[in-house]
């Protein structure tokens, strides 16, 4: 279908397993979704649900010699990322897919200037010399809205404020015109006013450059204003996928419903306790068969305890992984 030409990234049944002292932990278990060209996709979930693991698995950032193993496929621009050689991955990272991290201070080398760190990406990928790289770096800093970029480019990371550092991270990510930007909670560590500025910047860049964005966050408010489509994750699995309007106006999965209900709004009565999803997120290696949300679900049925639900397409834009919706078209057969 012509839809497929629009798809930039297609993840199929991705499984990431870590080998730790406590044994093997499968942090994400059968994650599948698509990212279209030019769209901003939100990836939402609580801490520990596997959002960062998904992002870092796409970039294959974990140490593959001893720590991690992957299953499934990640199709990007006609290649399966999981099958690329380390050298091909190095070419891909930073130039076609770029990532922005949550903590800008710890993500920058304290011993090198900001300009150096932007320039080295350019030098490494574009094979230009240092002078040219610095000129481009300066332009990138201007693009991301840093005031007085000629001075700031010579600064060290600890000399800049959090908001400025995050702009630097974005400048670094943009330097080689990536097709996809993965932003892992880029504003969580910032003040609210700065948050808004950074989010505006990301949206601007998405519009002007046509760059796709995977925005990882736990803040539904941000998702509502910035994203076109949303993916909800719980405990290593995608539980619902749909347009922003779908998720907010017609949430399907009980977890999503709980999340939406928990957001306090002006309409929330003042004297009543805020809504909470009952129970708490279980430890990952305690999870057994059946739906992972079962013990906290208000709509749980007997089947939920025994069988893991498969994702089903409920309407043109929404997909959900829940036994309450099993009478629609089934999308993926799990083996």
């Amino acid at each position, binding site marked *: 279908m012509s839809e497929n030409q629009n798809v930039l990234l297609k993840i199929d049944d991705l499984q990431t397993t870590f080998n730790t002292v406590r044994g093997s932990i499968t942090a994400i278990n059968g994650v599948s979704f698509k990212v279209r060209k030019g769209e901003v996709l939100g990836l939402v979930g609580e801490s520990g649900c596997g959002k960062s693991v998904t992002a*870092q698995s796409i*970039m294959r*950032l974990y140490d593959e010699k*001893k720590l991690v193993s992957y299953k499934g496929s990640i199709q990007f621009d006609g290649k399966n990322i999981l099958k690329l050689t*380390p050298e091909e*991955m*190095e*070419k*891909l*990272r*930073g*130039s076609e897919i*770029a*990532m922005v*991290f949550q*903590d800008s201070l*710890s*993500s*920058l*080398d*304290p*011993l*090198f200037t900001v300009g150096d760190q932007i320039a*080295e*990406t350019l030098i*490494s*990928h574009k094979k230009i010399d240092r002078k040219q790289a610095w000129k481009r770096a300066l332009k990138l800093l201007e693009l991301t809205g840093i005031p007085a970029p000629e001075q700031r480019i010579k600064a*060290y990371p*600890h*000399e800049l404020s959090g908001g400025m550092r995050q702009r630097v*991270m974005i400048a*670094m990510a943009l330097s080689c015109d990536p097709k996809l930007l993965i932003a892992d909670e880029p504003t969580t560590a910032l003040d609210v006013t700065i948050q808004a500025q950074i989010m505006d910047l990301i949206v601007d860049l998405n519009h002007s450059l046509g760059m796709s964005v995977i925005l990882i966050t736990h803040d539904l408010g941000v998702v509502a204003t910035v994203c076109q489509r949303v993916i909800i994750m719980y405990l290593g699995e995608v539980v619902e996928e749909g347009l922003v309007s779908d998720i907010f106006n017609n949430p399907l999965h009980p977890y999503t419903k709980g999340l939406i209900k928990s957001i306090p709004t002006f309409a929330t009565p003042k004297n009543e306790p805020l809504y909470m999803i009952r129970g708490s997120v279980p430890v990952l290696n305690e999870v057994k068969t059946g739906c992972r949300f079962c013990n906290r679900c208000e709509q749980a049925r007997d089947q939920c305890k025994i069988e893991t639900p498969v994702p089903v397409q409920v309407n043109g834009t929404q997909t959900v992984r829940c036994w309450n919706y099993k009478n629609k078209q089934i999308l993926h057969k799990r083996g």
Partner: protein
Amino acid sequence: MAKYMGKRLLSSLLTLLLVSIIIFSLVHLIPGDPAAIILGPDATVQSLEKVRAQMGFDKPIVKQYMDWITGALRGDLGVSYYNNAPVTPEIIRRLAPSLTIAVIAQLVAILISIPLGVVSAKNKGCKSDYAISVFTLLGVSVPNFLLSLFLVLILGVGLKVLPVSGYGSLSNGLWGYFKYLVMPIIALSLAQAGLLTRMTKSTMSDIINTDFMKAAKAKGLSERNRLYKHALRNTLSPILTIVGQTFGSLIAGTAIIEIIFNIPGIGQLIVTSITKRDYAQLQGIILTVSVIYISINLIVDLLYGVVDPRIKLTGKKEGS
């Protein structure tokens, strides 16, 4: 930056003052009449009193300390109890061989450790890591004087490749000078290399797991670039500090080894001071060595300030 350097300098001077008080107190708490030591058991009461007045032993202890320390600031560490010769020139003469050995041993250790530490951290858990770990374990477990004894047995007595004692001068040519130093340097540097390799590996492993290394990987930088540009630079600074801190034990180790190899350095001077109960010389030696040690640490800290941009701003070292 200047603020940092000023603070460090002041701190070092204060420490030096305290050290001098400690050394002086220790030596002067040693029981026995110094005058009797100098003159021997047959001295008469009058000559004892005369010597006491001459050397200032009858003055209150604080005054004695002040005299000593003000003298030391001018370079005068007093006179030997044994032969009445000034202490300072003898110490300086003896410093040259000891410091030569200590410095070369430290350099050799650094040259061995950094590459080994990097390889070990990079290949953690692999065969090369285990092999290097065996080496470092032996390095820190074999005392340097024991290693010296074994070296003497094997290379000196057994194979007769190197001289086992004595000290040459440069007039005998480079090898003529160095052949006496080879075994001491091997003995000292191996223990130090064991320690430094472990610290390099540990520091580098910590650095490799940091967020900025992960971000560097996400930028698509090559492994070589990440390791040798970013990880190594960040490792060198803490290792530099450790090099300074362990230099003291290297000097102390040199002292002991000199006795085995009959090298006319500080170590021999210490032993003779003790056997002859020449406490004036002893306290002069320990003060001198401490001054050197404190100075080296001061230089290392100042260098750190130049190398690490975070110091310039905050005036404080990371983790302090």
